[in-house]
């Protein structure tokens, strides 16, 4: 794994760690605050990510490729987009959780335009988040946001997805990453 990260990234990560540790030792306030930010967001993600990846693993093992192809694949039509939005509505976290999920869906035969719909919708249509939003911003605000962004999202995903399918684009073109995704399934 270390080879894959690359020397520059390792250097960057190590100097970051050194900078933060030093800041705490000598009491350099900005460094301490950056360190605390890091801690705060790491904890928020550690609460979420293990569950997300366990569910991804279960999905990879149990859900048949044919099922995903049928409902989210090339022949799925409007149903595919509907599934994309519904799945996104229940996604927790944000885009950073949606990317690995999208990749699993793609591996199981979902088409690109549905993948992009899913990604965008997991940013804008998460149900728990929207409930929270209405309590602060009012329901009119959320209704406008949904009714403008969702059609635009589906339209743009349709165009982008079809364009990329024509170009024979593949998600995760890098050989190392492709291997990690296949898992002799």
């Amino acid at each position: 794994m270390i080879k894959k990260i690359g020397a520059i990234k390792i250097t960057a990560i190590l100097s970051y760690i050194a900078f933060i540790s030093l800041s705490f030792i000598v009491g350099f306030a900005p460094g301490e605050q950056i360190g605390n930010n890091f801690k705060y967001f790491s904890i928020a993600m550690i609460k979420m990510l293990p569950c997300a990846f366990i569910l991804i693993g279960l999905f990879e093992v149990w859900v048949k490729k044919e099922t995903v192809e049928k409902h989210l694949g090339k022949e799925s039509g409007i149903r595919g987009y509907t599934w994309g939005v519904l799945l996104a509505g229940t996604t927790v976290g944000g885009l950073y959780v949606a990317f690995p999920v999208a990749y699993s869906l793609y591996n199981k035969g979902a088409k690109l335009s549905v993948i992009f719909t899913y990604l965008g919708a997991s940013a804008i249509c998460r149900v728990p988040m929207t409930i929270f939003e209405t309590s602060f911003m009012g329901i009119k605000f959320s209704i406008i946001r949904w009714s403008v962004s969702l059609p635009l999202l589906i339209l743009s995903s349709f165009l982008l997805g079809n364009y990329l399918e024509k170009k024979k684009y593949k998600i995760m073109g890098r050989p190392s990453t492709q291997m990690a995704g296949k898992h002799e399934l």
Partner: protein
Amino acid sequence: MHYLYFATGFAVLISFIANRKKTFKALKIGFSQFLHILPAFLIMLIFVSIILFFISDKLISDYLGNNNKYLAVLIASFFGSITLMPGFVAYPLCGILLMKNVPYMVLSAFTTTLMMVGILTYPIEKEYFGLKVTIARNLISLFIALAVALVTGISFGELF
């Protein structure tokens, strides 16, 4: 948040009862995918921690209150694009800004870009989708956010 743990635990339990071997395989797959993307996550967290030091809640409030609405919308989209904030932080902040008479359209530009445009999630997105598609998706998202802001402005009578 708790329902996520509950759902995951329940799913693992059902899976384990149904097929022990498959369940271990699933956990293995999940773990190796997690390990694979972990460096990108680390780099994102480092970016987030540094960016949020320079762009504080106070800085955002100061700038979004700008008298020129159009400029405020652009600044809001900029902040929304370069920062990453969970909803439970962002919406209370917006609620406060609303009380300070920041227009709805500015806040919708901010929250929509915050959710859809991810400059900080770029290390992760690039890992899966590659550079070009990442840029394309984010530009489209920015456009959608501006469209949402525009319609919000019209609906709340802030534009005309």
